[in-house]
C-alpha cells in the first residue's frame, strides 16, 4: 500500500503528533481513497466526506491551541454503526434511524474524542449485530470482501464494514463490537488483526446492546503492531501505546507456552484453512514457542450453548420489546430466526443457562492455567459468496460454522486476538486466534506481536487484497 494508509499506525501517529503531518491532509487522503474504492466495497452505512475533512481540521486547530491531545490525535478511525457518535445517525443495521438517545457518545467514543481522533464514518453492521456473515438483507450487495475481485464474497460480521474500511484506506483503526465473534470474524475474513476484550474491560455504554452479558467492544487494524498501538491508546489502564509496544516487543517466541486443542476446532475446515493456520503455528513453534496439546471440552460446550441461543437471544428479545418495539416488524429474516432461538424460553431456563455459563467460565479458566494462550483457527470456513448464502437454510448453516470457533471465547468469558496466518485454497484470508484467560489482553498482544515478527505482517504474508487500497 502506498500513501499514509500504507504506513504503520505508530509512524503516522508520530507524524501527526509532531505536526509533520496534519490531520486535515490525512483526512483528505481518506476522502480520496473513499472516492476510488468505495463504490464496489461499501464499507460505510454513513459516509460524509465534508465532515471527515472538518474533523481533521478541528483536530489541527486543537493541536495549534495546545488543547487536548492523545496518541490517536488526527488518526482516522471508523466506528461500527452500533455506537452513538453525535452528529451521525445510528441505524444499527436496521432500515430506520434509531431514536436520538442512541446517537449519544458513550465512554468509548468519548475516549476517541478526547484524543482528537478523526471519526471517518459509521461502518456497516449486521442488523443489531446479530450475525457472523456480514450480510444485511436491508442493503443488498454491501459491504464486499475486497479479497475476491471475481465474486462478491461476504466480509464477515457483524462488524461487516470494519475490516473493509481498513482495506479501502479510509481508516487506520476500526471500532467494532463482539458478542460471539463480531470483531474477530470480519478481521479474519478480511486479512486484518482484531481484539475481542474481556467482558467488562471496556465499557459498552453508548452502543446498541445485543446481549449486555456478552457484549464487548473491540478493535480491528491491519497488523498486530497497529492493533497494539490502538489498544494501548484506548485502554485506560495503559494509555501510553509506545510504552505498551516497547513492553510487548521485549518478548520472544520461547517465552510462551501455547495450548492447542482438538475438541472440534479443526474439524470441517474449508480447503486450505487448517493448513494455513497450522503453517503459521508451526513457524512460531520452530522459532521457539512451546506447544502443548490439551483437551478442552469446555470449548465445545460453549459452542453448544451458543447454538441453543445461550442468553443472547433472550436478552436481545427483551431489549427490542422494551426499547425498540417498532423495529421488530422489519427485522431481517436471518436475525428474526436467531432471536427466536432463545427468545421464548422461561426465566428458569434463562437463569439455568446463566449459571451454566458461570460454571463453564470457571472450568475454562482452570483449564488454561499454566498456558499463555490457547490457539485456534479463527473461522473454519472460507467466506461464502453472497449467492451461496442467499437461501435461508444455507445462511443459517454457514453462519453457525462461522461463529463456531469464536463464540466459545465469549461464552467462557475469555479474551481473544486474531491475526492473519495465510490464504486458503481459494485465496481468501485465514486467521488464527490466541485465546487468553479473562483480563490477559496484554499477554495476547505480546504473543501475537512476537508471532507477527516471525510470520510477517498481513501485507507481507498475504499480499495485497485484489480490490483493496494499493
Amino acid at each position, binding site marked *: 500500500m502506498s500513501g499514509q494508509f500504507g504506513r504503520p499506525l505508530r509512524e503516522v501517529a508520530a507524524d501527526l503528533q509532531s505536526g509533520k503531518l496534519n490531520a486535515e491532509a490525512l483526512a483528505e487522503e481518506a476522502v480520496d481513497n473513499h472516492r476510488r474504492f468505495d463504490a464496489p466495497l461499501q464499507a460505510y452505512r454513513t459516509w460524509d466526506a465534508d465532515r471527515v475533512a472538518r474533523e481533521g481540521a478541528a483536530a489541527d486547530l*486543537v493541536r*495549534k491551541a*495546545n488543547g*487536548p491531545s492523545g496518541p490517536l490525535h488526527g488518526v482516522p478511525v471508523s466506528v461500527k454503526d452500533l455506537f452513538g457518535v453525535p*452528529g451521525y445517525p445510528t441505524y444499527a443495521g436496521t432500515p430506520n434511524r434509531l431514536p436520538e438517545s442512541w446517537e449519544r457518545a458513550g465512554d468509548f467514543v468519548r475516549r476517541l474524542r*478526547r484524543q*482528537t481522533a478523526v471519526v471517518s464514518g459509521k461502518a456497516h453492521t449486521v442488523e443489531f449485530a446479530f450475525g457472523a456473515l456480514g450480510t444485511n438483507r436491508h442493503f443488498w450487495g454491501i459491504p464486499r470482501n475486497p479479497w475476491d475481485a471475481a465474486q462478491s464474497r461476504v466480509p464477515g460480521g457483524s462488524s461487516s464494514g470494519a475490516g473493509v474500511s481498513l482495506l479501502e484506506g479510509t481508516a487506520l483503526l476500526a471500532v467494532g463490537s463482539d458478542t460471539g465473534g463480531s470483531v474477530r470474524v470480519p478481521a479474519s475474513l478480511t486479512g486484518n488483526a482484531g481484539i475481542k476484550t474481556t467482558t467488562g474491560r471496556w465499557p459498552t455504554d453508548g452502543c446498541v446492546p445485543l446481549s449486555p452479558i456478552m457484549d464487548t467492544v473491540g478493535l480491528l487494524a491491519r497488523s498486530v503492531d497497529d492493533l497494539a498501538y490502538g489498544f494501548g491508546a484506548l485502554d485506560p489502564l495503559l494509555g501510553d501505546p509506545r510504552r505498551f509496544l516497547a513492553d510487548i516487543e521485549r518478548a520472544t517466541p520461547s517465552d510462551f507456552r501455547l495450548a492447542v486443542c482438538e475438541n472440534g476446532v479443526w474439524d470441517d475446515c474449508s480447503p486450505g484453512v487448517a493448513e494455513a493456520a497450522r503453517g503459521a503455528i508451526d513457524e512460531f513453534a520452530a522459532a521457539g514457542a512451546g506447544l502443548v496439546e490439551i483437551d478442552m471440552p469446555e470449548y465445545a460446550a460453549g459452542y453448544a450453548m451458543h447454538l441453543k441461543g445461550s442468553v443472547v437471544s433472550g436478552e436481545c428479545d427483551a431489549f427490542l420489546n422494551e426499547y425498540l418495539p417498532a423495529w421488530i416488524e422489519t427485522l431481517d429474516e436471518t436475525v428474526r430466526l436467531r432471536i427466536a432461538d432463545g427468545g421464548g424460553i422461561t426465566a428458569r431456563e434463562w437463569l439455568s443457562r446463566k449459571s451454566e455459563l458461570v460454571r463453564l467460565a470457571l472450568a475454562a479458566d482452570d483449564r488454561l492455567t499454566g498456558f499463555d494462550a490457547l490457539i485456534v483457527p479463527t473461522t473454519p470456513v472460507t467466506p461464502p459468496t453472497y449467492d451461496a448464502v442467499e437461501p435461508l437454510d444455507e445462511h443459517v448453516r454457514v453462519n453457525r460454522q462461522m461463529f463456531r470457533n469464536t463464540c466459545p471465547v465469549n461464552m467462557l468469558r475469555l479474551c481473544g486476538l486474531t491475526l492473519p496466518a495465510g490464504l486458503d485454497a481459494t485465496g481468501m484470508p485465514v486467521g488464527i486466534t490466541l485465546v487468553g484467560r479473562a483480563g490477559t489482553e496484554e499477554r495476547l498482544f505480546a504473543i501475537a506481536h512476537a508471532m507477527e515478527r516471525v510470520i510477517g505482517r498481513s501485507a507481507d504474508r498475504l499480499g495485497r487484497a485484489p480490490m483493496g487500497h494499493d
Partner: protein
Amino acid sequence: MSDLTEFPIAEIGRNLRARKFTARDLTDAAIANHDSRGEALGAYKLWQADAARDAADAADALFRVGADLGPFQGVPVSVKDLFAVNGLPTFAGSPNRLPPAFERQGPVVDALRGQQAVITGKTHTVEFAYGGAGVNNHWGSPRNPWDANDHRVSGGSSSGAGVSLCEGSALIALGSDTAGSVRVPASVTGNVGLKVTHGRWSLAGITPLSPALDTPGVLARTVADTTVAFGEIDRKASTGALLSATESASLDGLRIGICDDIFWQDCSPGIVEGVRQALDELTEVGARLVPLELPEAEEVFGLFRRGGIVSAEFKSFLEDELPEWEATLDSVVSARMESAADITAIEFVRRCRLMARCSATAAGRLRTVDCVVTPSVSITPPKLAEVSDVDGYMPRNMMMLRNTSIGNLLSLCALTMPVALDAGAMPVGMQVLMPAGAEEKLLAVAGAMERKLGTGRERLGAPPLCA
C-alpha cells in the same frame, strides 16, 4: 442579557451546543470585558487574547463535528500563576521565571484543558502563594473592584483569581489554598471559593508552599458553577449526580454548628451582621443553629500564628529547589518565612502531631452537626496603603487568614459564598465547613443555601468598577 459571560456555565453549555452562540463569541465577550475593565484591576500576570481566540476556534470546530469533550469546552478559565500550564511560563509571583520543571502541567489543569477549555491567562499570586492579603511588591497587587475610590486588596494569595471573575474575563478561576488562598480572595471579591480536602486533588504541576497543607481549589461566581467545576475536575464525582443532589437538597432540619469562640470575634463592622442575617434567612426554611464547642480552632490558630509548619516547609523547599529566589523574596513573604523557619525537627513533628490530634477530636465534635458556618474573612479588605509595609501587613494578613486557616489546619473541606456587603460596602463571605472528604455534601448544602439566599450578583449587585 447582552454580556454572554454573565450566563451560568450550565446555560452557556446548552447554548453552545444549540449553536445559539459560539465559543468564539463567548471568548470575544470575555476579551472585551478585560479590555474595558482589566487595566485598572490588574488581575493577570499573563493575558493571552490571541491564544484564547485560537482555543475558542478549536472548541467551535469540535462542536461543529459533534465532538463534545465536556462542560468546559469553549469556556474561558483563568489559572493562578502557581499552576503549570503547558506552553506558558510560571513565575509563581516571583520576579523570575521558574525552571521548566515548574511548567509541566498537572492533572487539575489537564482536566479542564482536556475539555478544550479556553485559558485566558495566568492570574497574579502573592509570591509563592505565601500571604492572604493579595500583596505582591514585584508585579503589583490586583485591585479589588468593589471600591471605586481606593485601591483595596483583592485577597490572596490567589489575588488575580477573584478579580478575573469580577471583570468577566473568566468564568472559573483556578487557585490554591494553604491557609485560605482560595476562600479569602473569593470572599473579598464577592465570589464563591471551594477548598477541597487535602489529598483529594493532585498537587502535581503546582509550585508548592506547604505540601502538608496545600490544596488546589476553584473560584466561581456561583455555587452552581463551582459544582460543575468540581464535578469535572474530581475523579470520583460526577457532575450530573452532584447537580441532582443539589436539586434535592433541603435545608429543613439542617444542623448548622455555630462556634461562639474565635471565628466571630474582632470582625470589622457589618461582617458578623451580614453572616447572621444570612443565617436567619436559612432558619426560615428550617435550618437549625446549633451551638458547637470547637476549642481545637483556637489551638491550631495559635500554632498558625507562630508560623505553624508552613514557614519551615517553605524555607526548606526554597533552599533545596530554588535557592536563587531567596535573595529577591518580597518583604511581605520573607518576613513570614522567617517566623518559624528554624524550628527543630522535633518541634516540627510536634506541630504536625498537634494538628493531627486536633483534627481527630474536631472531627468527633463535627459529628453532631451537618456543617459549621463562620464569616470567611474577619476584616474588611484593607487599603493597599495600609499593607504596603511589613508592620502594617503582618497583623492584617493574619486576621484575613484567621477563619480560613482553621479549615486547613483541622483537615476540613470548606466553601465560601457571598452573602452581604459590610459597613464599608465590601463583600462578606460566609464560610461553610465540613469534615474531610464531604465535598459532595458541602456543594449540595451550599447549593441549597444559594437557592434560598440568591447568588452573589443577586444579593450584592455588581462591583462598582465592573458595572
